């Protein structure tokens, strides 16, 4: 893998951000709105529940983690969509650029935009609503790492879907995080779910993060093995997503889909 083409992919996104407030705003706005809405909701729940339960770390912390995961995933897909929207595939893939360089460039873009979003969320959640990560301690970092890896995996997988099915399938991608959220137990323990949903949840790495986070916040026993399993799953799923993207790319080159991509076809 060469560094300059990766820098090129990243620089292109930077140019777009620099010249367009429309692109910068969503990086902060939606996550900030989410934190504000859930911040006030947790305050209200705390007044209803009295002093017995503090909803801030479990609910607001979960929202923050989930929004971070969503930003990572959408950071990859949005960077990919820029090439879909500008019909740039022919220019891009008729160059020496390799698929791994291209995907790495997308991931790099996502890291930067997601960290910016995370910073805004952290400031709002801690300063305005008093969220503290004290209960999580150093476990905060592996939690974020697992969400990061799975966000990349889902972003790369979703991009491959759009590459295979055509530009209109972009509409399948936006609701993906929302479709997964019931299975990973963002706001409730997996035990709440029926058996089949729980089984799906166990295949999704964020489940292990949210279970672990709730255990630590409520002072219950925390399973490091389960988190390791989640991390391993996230890594495996990221590698599988990369493999899937490469397979789809080869398919589009073989069938001619890539060459006539802007003609938008499913077949």
């Amino acid at each position, binding site marked *: 893998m*060469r560094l*300059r*083409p990766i*820098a*090129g*992919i990243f*620089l*292109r996104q930077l*140019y*777009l951000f620099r*010249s*367009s407030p429309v692109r910068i705003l969503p990086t902060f706005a939606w996550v900030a709105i989410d934190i504000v809405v859930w911040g006030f909701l947790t305050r209200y729940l705390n007044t209803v529940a009295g002093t017995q339960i503090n909803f801030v770390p479990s609910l607001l912390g979960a929202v923050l983690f989930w929004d971070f995961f969503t930003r990572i995933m959408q950071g990859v897909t949005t960077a990919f969509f*820029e090439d879909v929207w*500008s*019909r*740039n*595939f*022919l*220019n*891009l*893939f*008729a*160059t*020496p*650029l*390799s698929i791994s360089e291209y995907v790495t460039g997308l991931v790099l873009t996502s890291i930067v935009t997601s960290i910016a979003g995370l910073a805004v969320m952290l400031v709002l959640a801690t300063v305005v609503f008093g969220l503290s990560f004290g209960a999580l301690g150093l476990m905060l970092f592996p939690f974020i790492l697992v969400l990061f890896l799975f966000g990349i995996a889902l972003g790369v997988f979703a991009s491959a879907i759009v590459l295979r099915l055509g530009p209109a399938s972009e509409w399948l991608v936006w609701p993906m995080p929302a479709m997964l959220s019931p299975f990973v137990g963002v706001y409730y323990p997996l035990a709440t779910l029926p058996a089949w949903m729980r089984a799906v949840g166990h295949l999704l790495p964020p489940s292990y993060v949210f279970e672990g986070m709730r255990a630590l916040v409520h002072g219950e026993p925390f399973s490091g093995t389960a988190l390791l399993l989640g991390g391993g799953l996230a890594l495996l799923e990221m590698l599988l997503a990369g493999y899937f993207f490469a397979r789809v790319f*080869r398919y589009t*080159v*073989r*069938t*001619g889909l*890539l*060459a006539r991509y802007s003609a938008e076809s499913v077949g």
Partner: protein
Amino acid sequence: MPATLYRPLEQLSAVDQPKLATVLGVADLCKSYAHIVAVERISFSVHRNEIVGLLGPNGAGKTTTINMILGVLAPTSGSIRIGGIDVTKRRSQALARTNFAAVYATLPGNLTVAQNLRFFGLIYGVADLTRRIETLLDQFDLRRLRNTRCGVLSSGEQTRVALAKALLNRPQLLLLDEPTASLDPAAAQGVREQIRGLAREQDCGILWTSHNMYEVEEVCDRVLFLSHGRILLEGDPRTLPREHGVRSLEELFIQLAREPLDATREAAK
């Protein structure tokens, strides 16, 4: 036109082609889909300092051939070598030696001229990129447009930017798919002069497609007539019409384009 009118390609290749360094070698190239054969066993080469015209009616297989050379469409069989490197086996190394401009592949309109050149320059791994960009901005008279977004440029300006991008990596092989299609006659003349200069001075071979036969006569050293996915004719565009008993290249083109598929197959044998 009778099939016997065509000279066998093999004879032409042996006799007429100058012994120059080959920048593009295409051998027995085929592309077929489920029920369609888009390109059927074509072989040709492009040499350094040579401009080769790839001609043919719509649907003849020109763009399919160019897409395969650019590595965005996999051949069903056959080989493509750019500067001696196989595109299928060593894609990145082969594509580093080529570049292209096509009327249907405009550069991202939301980036400025200079941003597009820097973006593609990094992807092609161009050394001393800043200086190369400045040189190309001068060469294609783009300096005053450097901070203008490509999406708002006129067709002629966009063509000049596409050509500047196509020369970023000093390609050994330059592919130009109808580069003057959307230009007025004066702008087209300017582009033709620039491209002839490139072939002469920059040591590259050029594969050019166009439907403008006057342009082809003016620019190309050699032409290949493609029809129904097969090469029917190859030769000097200035002498081919006379050799085949017609008045102009355009007339020859029209006759070849109207050949039914069976006659085309017979002629290409």
